[in-house]
């Protein structure tokens, strides 16, 4: 059913199955027909665990989204609310329950909190006088959701904001819990490395939780050899840069949510000629993107400049395969050909889809605006004129380009210069406030607090040192046949991934100096394994590392890690986990403050 999850080095289907089992158990607790009322945010992630068919098997007949007012009528015995533990949602639920009670009362109400129940929320329900109406109040622990064969995400949008702006460590607790669940299924991870404040917290929590369960020994042979915890604020630069891999660009331009992308329909319209041209699809085309699609798995992590060549090569292979039918003479040959047809047809339609997507993207990447933007980004990353006001940014502000674009560039300059000169800093801020409105003062404050945008405190700029030591800029990045991770940004090698790479070989001791320049402590912990579980490693067998990005990770970084896994001499395979899949735009957005009501 979710075959793409089990191809990888670590079978993540085990995790998914465990999650499904728990869901079934809960559904069976509420006997009889049911309707589910969804917190809208949860539907996407849930879709990755269980399709509608599973819910249907357990007598779920109706599904609604949670909104205030009265529930839509449904002839069911149970109403189940699937919600995040948020106070504002509790008020809506209370309203729902009240309006329902007045009509008829033969209903049973249940709440399922995802990922954890909260005392505060229950208290709120009590205050509203509806707590007693619920028969079951339960929690469904869903921390890490498998997105692909090598990718886990919590899809916890506000994690970065909470950790670095609001000092709220809830997300870190969920992370630690999620890692414990993972260890229960895949064995204790013997070695833990980390860099950053939050990484330290998570590791501490994990070790404490382990002590609390001291009596129970985990008897599973460990699948992961190493866990690496990385704070997003160790590497603020990477997500700000425009990603240049195929998947990265799809995300930058159209946005990928929960493994799906919505594309403008025009490009996909002409294929259904039989239906006539009168009803062009106006709904955006929705496509699922994961490694289950053979072609996509092949090209997703390539630099976009190499995608065209890969697509045309594929096209030739497919048409050659179709040509084969002329050579099929015997019945046996024809039979074999026919048996391959569905597979070939699927390949052909996937090729058509991706060619269309690539064309759409190409329209944008070849535009002047995209090129100018990229040039400026690369100037900053190579350290050109980062201490002056940049004329391109100035022009963009004057032309009122989208604010997020401006913020991305300004933050990038700030990070590459280890803070902007006070004069430059104030100038940008004034320009932004005057052009986009004073209400953005709060957003600027947030960025400052998060360290993305700051005035220079010490006179020394340590970014050049970091860049040189970690070889963050490679002049001759090979986009077609990459030999280094820097291909994902056409020259810039993501700092976070370099750290991962160095950790595997030759080890962090060689870069002590640089580690000290980056924020937060770095550390190493060991977890004792019960005797007899020490893995005997065969010659040539790869080690497996789980890299956890606290505060989000971009698709280009994922691509870079996959690239490292595939390198023959690396001896290391990577599984990636994160609090949220993000790009520069969604990231900045999560840090913005929008005062909701404007003066009328």
């Amino acid at each position, binding site marked *: 059913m979710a075959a793409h999850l089990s191809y990888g080095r670590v079978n993540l289907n085990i995790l998914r199955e465990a999650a499904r089992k728990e869901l079934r158990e809960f559904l069976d607790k509420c006997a009889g027909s049911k309707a589910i009322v969804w917190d809208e945010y949860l539907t996407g992630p849930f879709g990755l665990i269980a399709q509608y068919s599973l819910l249907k098997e357990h007598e779920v007949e109706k599904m609604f989204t949670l909104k205030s007012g009265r529930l839509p009528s449904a002839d069911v015995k149970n109403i189940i609310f699937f919600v995040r533990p948020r106070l504002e949602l509790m008020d809506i639920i209370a309203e729902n329950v009240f309006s329902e009670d007045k009509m008829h009362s033969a209903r049973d109400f249940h709440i399922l909190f995802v990922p954890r129940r909260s005392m505060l929320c229950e208290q709120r329900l009590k205050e509203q006088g509806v707590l007693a109406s619920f028969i079951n109040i339960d929690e469904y622990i869903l921390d890490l959701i498998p997105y692909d064969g090598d990718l886990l995400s919590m899809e916890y949008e506000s994690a970065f904001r909470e950790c670095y702006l609001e000092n709220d460590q809830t997300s870190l607790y969920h992370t630690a819990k999620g890692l414990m669940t993972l260890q229960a299924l895949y064995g204790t991870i013997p070695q833990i490395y980390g860099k950053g404040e939050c990484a330290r917290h998570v590791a501490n929590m994990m070790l404490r939780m382990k002590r609390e369960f001291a009596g129970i020994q985990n008897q599973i042979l460990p699948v992961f050899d190493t866990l690496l915890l990385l704070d997003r604020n160790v590497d603020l630069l990477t997500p700000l840069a425009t990603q240049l891999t195929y998947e990265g660009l799809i995300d930058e331009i159209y946005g990928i949510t929960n493994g799906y992308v919505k594309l403008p329909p025009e490009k996909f319209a002409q294929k259904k000629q039989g239906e006539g041209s009168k009803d062009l699809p106006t709904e955006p085309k929705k496509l699922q993107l994961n490694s289950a699609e053979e072609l996509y798995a092949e090209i997703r992590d390539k630099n976009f400049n190499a995608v065209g060549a890969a697509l045309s090569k594929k096209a030739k292979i497919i048409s050659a395969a179709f040509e084969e039918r002329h050579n099929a003479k015997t019945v046996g040959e024809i039979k074999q050909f026919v048996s391959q047809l569905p597979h070939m047809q699927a390949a052909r339609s996937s090729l058509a889809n991706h060619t269309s997507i690539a064309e759409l993207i190409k329209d944008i990447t070849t535009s002047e605006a995209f090129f100018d933007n990229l040039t400026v980004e690369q100037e900053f990353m190579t350290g050109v004129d980062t201490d002056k006001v940049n004329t391109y940014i*100035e*022009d963009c*502000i*004057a*032309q*009122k380009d989208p604010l997020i674009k401006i913020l991305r560039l300004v933050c990038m300059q700030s990070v590459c210069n280890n803070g902007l000169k006070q004069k430059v800093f*104030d100038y940008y*801020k*004034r*320009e932004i*406030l*005057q*052009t*986009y*409105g*004073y*209400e953005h*003062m*709060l957003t600027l*404050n947030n960025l400052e607090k998060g360290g993305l945008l700051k005035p220079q405190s010490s006179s020394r700029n340590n970014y050049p040192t970091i860049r040189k030591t970690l070889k963050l800029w490679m002049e001759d990045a090979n986009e077609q046949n990459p030999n280094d991770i820097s291909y994902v940004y056409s020259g810039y090698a993501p700092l976070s991934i370099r750290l991962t790479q160095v950790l595997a070989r030759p080890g962090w001791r060689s870069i002590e100096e640089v580690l000290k320049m980056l924020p937060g402590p770095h550390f190493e912990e060991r977890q004792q394994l019960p005797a007899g579980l020490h893995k005997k490693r065969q010659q040539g067998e790869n080690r497996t590392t789980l890299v956890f990005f606290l505060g989000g990770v971009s698709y280009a970084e994922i691509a870079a890690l996959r690239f490292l896994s595939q390198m023959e001499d690396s001896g290391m395979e990577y599984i990636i986990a994160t609090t949220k899949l993000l790009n520069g735009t969604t990231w900045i957005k999560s840090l913005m*403050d929008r*005062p*909701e*009501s*404007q*003066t*009328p």
Partner: protein
Amino acid sequence: YYVTASYREKRLDSRLSVLQSAVDEYNKAKNEFSAKATEEEMRLLRFQRKLDDEKGAGLLGLSLQATMEALLASGLNKQAEQLYRDFRVPDKRYWWLKLKSLAEKEEWEELEKF
């Protein structure tokens, strides 16, 4: 946090007074930039109110740039000029704006004069 509160205030007078408290707080915290920016914001709000009352221009709540744009579009060049000087808008940005607005109104003769 006063700034957030100020956006919740529907009425302008009370909004201005909340912003004033924000300025005071910023001064206490020695956050010069924010204090100044907030004062600027108040100045802009007052200016917008004055013009709205006089001409019914509907400017309230717009950013400075958008205000100037609106002024230029409705031919109130003098007022736009005044904002440009009062708020020390960088030349570059102002000329961009002015060019754009002239082009939109197709006043090519004015454009020639630059």
